[in-house]
């Protein structure tokens, strides 16, 4: 099987080298780009399966590349993980809302980065095949039948709870921002009503989590959004 190709967009040579070594060792085919222009060129020529993108590039802001990477290609859209030293919530939200699949803050944990990359690539394939049923531990979410079971028993969720869970289940492991969730489930005009999400999240946890006080299924990213962990 042809190895998956990862484009590393990073202006710092040491980090580029580090990522290259780590990814190559894991079995990926790695291409490097030191600035935005080289990244766009590599994107068109090498057609990578995933992109690790630094936001602080010498020639342009990495955020500007996010929509270009997610839109400017025929065929499979690459998985995109932002790897940045910028830890402000608004930067994370902006990158995710623009289409990034995940966001990892420097200094990162190599294990963590690998896990995120795997999830993003898996999701990229899943988006192609439209999975109808998601299994997370003892919880099963049947998107076609709009049914949720826990240990084989049906769980009754309110429509909004189900909507939120389904929206997250379509992209398991990926952070979905508050705005994306609110727009998809509550509709346009409710993008800022974060408390709706908090209420629904409590409901979901109470019905699906083993210990609602220390959630393992539905994880909150402070100020950004929620993700389902399996």
């Amino acid at each position, binding site marked *: 099987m042809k190895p998956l190709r990862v484009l590393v967009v990073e202006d*710092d040579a040491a980090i580029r080298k580090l990522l290259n070594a780590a990814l190559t060792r894991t079995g990926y085919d790695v291409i490097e780009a030191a600035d935005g222009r080289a990244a766009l060129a590599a994107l068109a020529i090498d057609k990578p399966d995933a992109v690790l993108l630094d936001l602080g590039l010498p020639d342009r802001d990495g955020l500007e590349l996010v929509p270009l990477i997610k839109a400017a290609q025929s065929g499979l859209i690459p998985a995109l993980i932002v790897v940045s*030293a910028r830890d402000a919530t608004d930067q994370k939200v902006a990158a995710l809302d623009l289409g990034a699949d995940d966001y990892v803050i420097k*200094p990162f944990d190599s294990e963590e980065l690998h896990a995120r990359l795997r999830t993003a690539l898996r999701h990229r394939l899943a988006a192609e095949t439209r999975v109808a049923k998601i299994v997370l531990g003892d919880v099963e979410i049947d998107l076609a039948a709009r049914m949720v079971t826990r240990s084989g028993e049906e769980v009754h969720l309110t429509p909004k709870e189900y909507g939120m869970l389904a929206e997250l289940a379509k992209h398991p492991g990926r952070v979905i921002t508050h705005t994306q969730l609110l727009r998809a489930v509550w509709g346009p005009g409710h993008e800022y009503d974060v*408390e709706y999400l908090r209420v629904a999240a409590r409901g979901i946890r109470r019905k699906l989590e083993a210990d*609602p006080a220390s959630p393992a299924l539905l994880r909150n990213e402070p100020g950004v959004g929620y993700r389902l962990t399996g």
Partner: protein
Amino acid sequence: MNEPPRPDPDALLRTVASGAGTGATGKPNTRGRLKVFLGAAPGVGKTCEMLDDGAARRNAGIDVVIGLAETHGRIETMARTAGFEIIPRKMIEHHGRTLDEMDLDAVIARAPALVLIDELAHTNAPGSRHDKRYQDIEDILAAGIDVYSTLNIQHIESLNDVVASFTRVRVRETLPDRVLETADLEIVDLPPDELIERLREGKVYVPEEASRALAHFFSKSNLSALRELALRRAAQAIDAQMLDHVRAHALAGKWAAGERLVVAISEHPGAIGLVRSAKRMADALSAPWTALHVETTRDLGLSEADRRQLTATTELVQHLGGETATIPAENIIAGLLSFLDETRATQLILGKASRSRWHEWRHGSVVDNMVRRASGVAVHVLTLDEAGERARTRHAVVGQQAGPDRWGTPLGYGVSLGLVALVTLLGYSISGIGNVTNIALLYLLPVLVAATRFGLRTGIIAGLASSLAYNFFFIPPLLTFSIADPQNLITVMVLLGIAVMVSQMASRVRDHAMLARNSAAQNGAIAGFARQMTGISNETELAQVLCAEVARLLDVRAVLLLPEDGDLVVRAANPPEDRLETLERAAARWAYDKNRRAGRGSDTLTACEWLFSPIGVSGRVLGVLGIARDDTGTPLRIDQLPLLSSLLDQVALAFERIMLEGEMAGVAKLREQDRLRTALLSSVSHDLRTPLTAIIGNLDAIRPADAEQADQLATARAEAERLRGFVANLLDMARIEAGVLTRSSEPVDLADAIAGAVHDLRTRLSANPIRMEVSPDLPFVRVDAQLFQQCLVNLISNAATHGDPGAPITIAARREAGGMKLMVMDQGPGLPPGEEDRIFETFARIEGSDRKGGTGLGLAIVRGFCTAMGLAVAASNRPDTQGACFTIQFDDAHLTNVEETAE
């Protein structure tokens, strides 16, 4: 329609103002009460009565002092002042004489509960803060101090005429009636016979120089009349207070409602008397009253003295508590009728001047017309007292204007007579051709020209000349001034009549044009000023333009003062002037502090040459404009007041605009600074983290060859991890210190935040079990999610560092009255007593705990973040067991109830 009786809001307001309301200064203390001991004449014992009452209050334990008591050297009075604290009088130098006055500031500074001050109607020495003592007393009342004072009945403004009419002594020191309206009155009564007896015994103080005039004053009939007046006035005061009570409580009952009185005033000196009568009548009717001046074309011809008289009359109206109004109209009758209609007035007071029949025939009698046409209004006609007092203007009338307009110019006469001669010549040359009557028509020409161009008198002269010339040259017998044919007499009369009529019409047209021009000029001035204002963007320029324009439009000297570091500083003047006298500074300060006009032409500090008007918008005073005349006259005429007011309003708006622009620029600058700081920090953060990332990543990638290398690698990895913690904390701290924390606020579920923090710390917390005591139905908290989670991370990691190894960390949230609290508790040595607050300081580490590691910044960051989010954080020792407890306190404003946010 069966509404319960509604309290009259005005009456309620008055009751509040006189009773338990706050003072005008807005201080929490209530306004003091004034009690006036009213007597019919000097010598009835007012001062003694006041001192006795004061002594009674003092004996009751109340703090009573004497502000001023006139003992006139009499033993029985002086004896009564014993036992009182007396505030020393203030010496005032005036033209080489030393006058002593009550020390207003000392009284207010002493702040007793009650102060006794004699002679309410007294006029202060020139140079005092206020003209009148009652104004001093108003200041004292406003300071929340009660006042007892004394007054003789003849000093009451509205009774001034009445008293003068039978005593033939006019008192110059008068007291506005409004002062008594909210005061308690106590009559000090003494039968006339006893008073006269006291006078004979020398027990009544009579100034040397006035003793002869006063001998007549103290006649028995006078004293009886005065006594009756005093008793009636007191009864009336009780009546008014009763009425207010009835209205305020909406008690059913009958009172004169809906009466409204209008008095027509003009520049006539007798209008002063008219105004006083109106005040008395209004009081008797308990009706509001307005003095109306109808402005017609006639006002153009008013002399400076007339205008002063009118100003004085209006001032008196305000003094007596009436309203004043000025309306422009075609003629007096039309103006009066429209005003009566508009205000639904029920009573009208008119003065009837002793005018000639001829005048009335020409102008129509206002009185007759009003009586005929004002239906539903009771018209009271009073005789205007021609010989009545002239306005008490303080300055001699300077230069009477002779109306050159009325008499015409020599040029006018020359041209008119020349025209008459020309027409005569022309007529003579054509007399052979046509009828002699046609020549008469030719004479209309000079008459029309003279009347329209040069006014009434020139027109009449032209008419006379024309008829004489016509008579002399063309009417048989020729070359004589006699007329044989009565028909020709008619021709002469017609010529004269036309001259009069045309010239009157023309002069009226010219007057109207001039009035329109004046008002257009004023509007133009205001509009031009407004245009100039909009182009100006700095204070200095605005100040200069204002002074220049005011000086030009009002023909005065102008100076503008603006506050600077709590002081008023001259910012512009026209003509240039850089400092003001002490008195002027005081007046300016007063105007600024009280938001009222002060100085000459106002009622405060009138010894000052300047009149200072506050410039302000919506109750906030921005500065003070002073104006003065070169001849030291009253700076402002009543008809100039509206112009000045609108100029000041515009300037106030312009000042406010400039101030806002300045504030906006400041905000923009701050924002730019914030942006730069944020950018700098973000760059530093990037530069520190990038090498750390490489170090940690590469350490992770190295495969150790043996156990020793593995050990070294683990140590390096752990130290790198520590360095990462330091960097993160330093950056957080730098963001707090730079004040660039970007705070967003969103509802956060405490369970979420705690779970997130525990997840972040999962590797460090492996040794310490976490106990959660967080109920799932707690309200959400409104905080910045990221900052808050960082706070929790720091608190929990602090607990893990300083608590006993392996001991559980308890995280509990409790709802309580007024809010909620979140506690992070460890088990361990706890905090040394007294260190509970110090541990939040930067780099504060508890003695002997250094080896436990930590950056010394974690708790400082918690406090910094919490402060930024408006939360309180505190440390204490656990009450239940050994260990430290950190509490974050949320008040209700930070909580969002779950029920309210149901789908």
